[in-house]
């Protein structure tokens, strides 16, 4: 039968297609054939349905050329945090242990200590620890090497000490005088006052000028100011408090003072009757409220105190009599003075006789004013100055040496230079370095000494001029110094930076050096005293034995006679000793070698003579 076609029914919207096939054709191979397209269903639009819809106009469509990402939000469970400190009271003890209970804790600890594992562990880490402890003790790994060494210091220490001449100021007069004293202007150091005089007794020519000059260091051609005293000035000092005032000590013993604002003539002079009888070698300004006090020293044996406002007479007087009796005939001539403003009650005087006298201004009686003396020099003490850093130690320049002393040791200086070939005529400490001092000699050389560097020789020795250098003064900065010569030539020198810069540890080292030398001298002094005491007791003993007078002061003749007698006694004793010794020697020889008798007879006249006597 042919296949049946059913027609479509719209109302059911059910589309059914029935296909029948004969049973006998099941399983038969497919026999495909082409057929033109057949329209099976055609559903036409139903306009009435459109009423259920509206037209959207316009339509918004977003377009983006970007990565597509999605955002998510998550809400977690709340977590509460709080800041707290812990007061660590006790370690993590086991729960069952009460930390307060001492016994229990001790027992616990002991238990741990017995544990083998504990012991092994501790042994191991303790070994490591010990190593580190020892390491710490062996070296300080944070040690600073070369501390405080800037490049500057290294450079300077390599520099050779040197000094160069900056300017030379010559005496403008025809007849040259010696520049006996120099003084720097207290403010700014631009001016130098030089005192000129001739110290050769009665050898000053008649037409010699009496003038002294103040030089401006920039202008060596002409002095800035002239000072006209009635007698040549031997010493000259600026008032440290008032730089217009200068005081000068003159050759005839008078003191005069100038005010540079008022001209070349002295503002006032001391009266001749009350002045010194000899040239005034040194005058120094004192520390006083009025700033007008000075004191002066001269070879006439006196030290006088003046107030420059009243120059008619000195307000105090000291006679340098070592026997403390104020006897002018016994007095020592003063050639230098020393005064430190930090020690206003003390002062020192250097004498012609080579003694340094230490004095106390505030003593009640004149006898007590002279406290003690220091001996050691052979000639006049031309310079006397305390070390600006160590005032207990002072420098003296005299004869052929310069010596450093300690106040406590009176018998000898603690350090001294060797004996030079020329006299030393002046010297001073450097104001900036405790170990440096300067000296000038008669042969015109300037020596710069640095006792930390070298003690036997000067660190620097310069020939400044051919004639003797008689005075030297260093500026407060320690860098510039002026030295005056016998022919009135004042030379201004500048020293190298190394000599005027304080080195590190310098003060400590210099202090150590002074202490060491002082100690050495103290020991020597004590030893000498012991020996002297022994000598004295021994000689006293022998004197008593001989029955001489106990307190007999033998006169000089007796002493000489005794000395002669003793001398001859000693000679006799020596001769006898020699004689006996020779006899002894001959005796021995004679016994062994009588054959040599003849030979010896020729060679040794005396002994053979003696021998003949014996043999006979």
């Amino acid at each position, binding site marked *: 039968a042919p296949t049946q076609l059913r027609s479509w029914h719209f109302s059911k919207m059910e589309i059914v297609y029935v296909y029948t096939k004969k049973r006998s054709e099941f399983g038969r191979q497919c026999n495909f054939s082409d057929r033109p397209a057949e329209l099976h269903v055609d559903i036409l639009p139903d306009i009435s349905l459109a009423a259920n819809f509206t037209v959207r106009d316009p339509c918004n469509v977003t377009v983006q050329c970007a990565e597509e990402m999605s955002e998510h939000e998550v809400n977690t469970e709340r977590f509460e945090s709080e800041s707290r400190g812990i007061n*660590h*009271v*006790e*370690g*993590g*003890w*086991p729960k069952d242990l009460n930390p307060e209970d001492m016994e229990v804790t001790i027992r*616990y*600890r002991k238990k*741990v*200590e*017995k544990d083998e*594992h*504990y*012991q092994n*562990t*501790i*042994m*191991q*880490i*303790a*070994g*490591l*620890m*010990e190593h*580190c*402890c*020892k390491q*710490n*003790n062996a*070296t*300080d790994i*944070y040690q600073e090497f070369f501390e405080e060494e800037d490049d500057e210091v290294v450079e300077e220490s390599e520099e050779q000490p040197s000094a160069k001449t900056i300017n030379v100021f010559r005496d403008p007069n025809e007849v040259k005088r010696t520049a006996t004293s120099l003084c720097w202007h207290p403010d700014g150091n631009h001016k130098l006052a030089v005192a000129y005089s001739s110290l050769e007794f009665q050898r000053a020519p008649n037409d010699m000028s009496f003038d002294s000059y103040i030089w401006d260091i920039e202008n060596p051609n002409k002095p800035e100011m002239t000072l006209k005293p009635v007698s040549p000035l031997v010493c000259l000092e600026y008032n440290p408090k008032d730089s217009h005032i200068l005081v000068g000590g003159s050759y005839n013993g008078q003191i005069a003072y100038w005010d540079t604002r008022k001209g070349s003539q002295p503002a006032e002079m001391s009266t001749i009757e009350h002045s010194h009888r000899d040239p005034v070698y040194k005058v120094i300004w004192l520390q006083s409220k009025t700033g007008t006090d000075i004191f002066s020293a001269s070879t006439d044996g006196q030290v006088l105190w003046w107030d420059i406002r009243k120059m008619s007479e000195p307000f105090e007087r000291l006679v340098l009599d070592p026997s403390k009796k104020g006897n002018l005939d016994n007095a020592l001539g003063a050639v230098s003075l020393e005064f430190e403003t930090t020690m206003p009650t003390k002062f020192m005087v250097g004498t012609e006789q080579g003694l340094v006298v230490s004095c106390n201004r505030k003593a009640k009686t004149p006898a007590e004013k002279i406290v003690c003396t220091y001996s050691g020099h052979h000639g006049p003490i031309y310079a006397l100055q305390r070390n600006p850093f160590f005032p207990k130690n002072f420098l003296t320049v005299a004869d052929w040496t310069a010596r450093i002393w300690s106040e406590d040791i009176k018998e000898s200086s603690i350090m001294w230079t060797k004996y030079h070939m020329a006299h030393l005529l002046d010297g001073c400490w450097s104001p900036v370095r405790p170990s440096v001092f300067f000296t000038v000699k008669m042969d015109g050389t300037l020596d710069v000494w640095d006792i930390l560097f070298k003690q036997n020789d000067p660190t620097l020795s310069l020939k400044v001029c051919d004639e003797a250098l008689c005075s030297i003064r260093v500026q407060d900065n320690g860098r510039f110094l002026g030295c005056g010569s016998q022919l009135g030539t004042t030379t201004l020198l500048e020293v190298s930076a190394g000599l005027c810069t304080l080195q590190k540890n310098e003060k400590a080292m210099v202090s150590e050096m002074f202490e060491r030398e002082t100690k050495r001298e103290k020991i020597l002094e004590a030893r000498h005293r012991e020996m002297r005491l022994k000598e004295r007791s021994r000689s006293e003993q022998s004197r008593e034995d001989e029955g001489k007078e106990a307190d007999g002061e033998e006169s000089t003749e007796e002493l000489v006679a005794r000395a002669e007698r003793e001398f001859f006694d000693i000679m006799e004793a020596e001769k006898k000793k020699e004689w006996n010794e020779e006899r002894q020697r001959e005796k021995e020889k004679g016994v062994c070698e009588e054959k040599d008798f003849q030979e010896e007879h020729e060679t040794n006249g005396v002994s053979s003579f003696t021998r003949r006597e014996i043999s006979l």
Partner: protein
Amino acid sequence: MAEVEETIKRIQSQKGVQGIIIVNAEGIPIKSTLDNSSTVQYAGNVHQLLLKARGMVRDIDPQNDLTFLRVRSKKNEIMIAPDKDYFLIVIQNPTE
């Protein structure tokens, strides 16, 4: 046990050593030559420092481990020798 005592005494006798403390992992001071309050203070603070230090060393290189810790201060040096279960603290004043 005597060896441990001896070793500790030896360390104590080294120049500059001010104190020795042995602490266990829980922070309990087992042995100390200082007073209790200082001991406890040291023990607690050092423990934390050790943890941090060890952590740092292992963080940088996991194969590495902390062997010794030295804390140098103005007044002295605190040396810590750590171990798994105990650590040893020594306070020393290094030579000038």
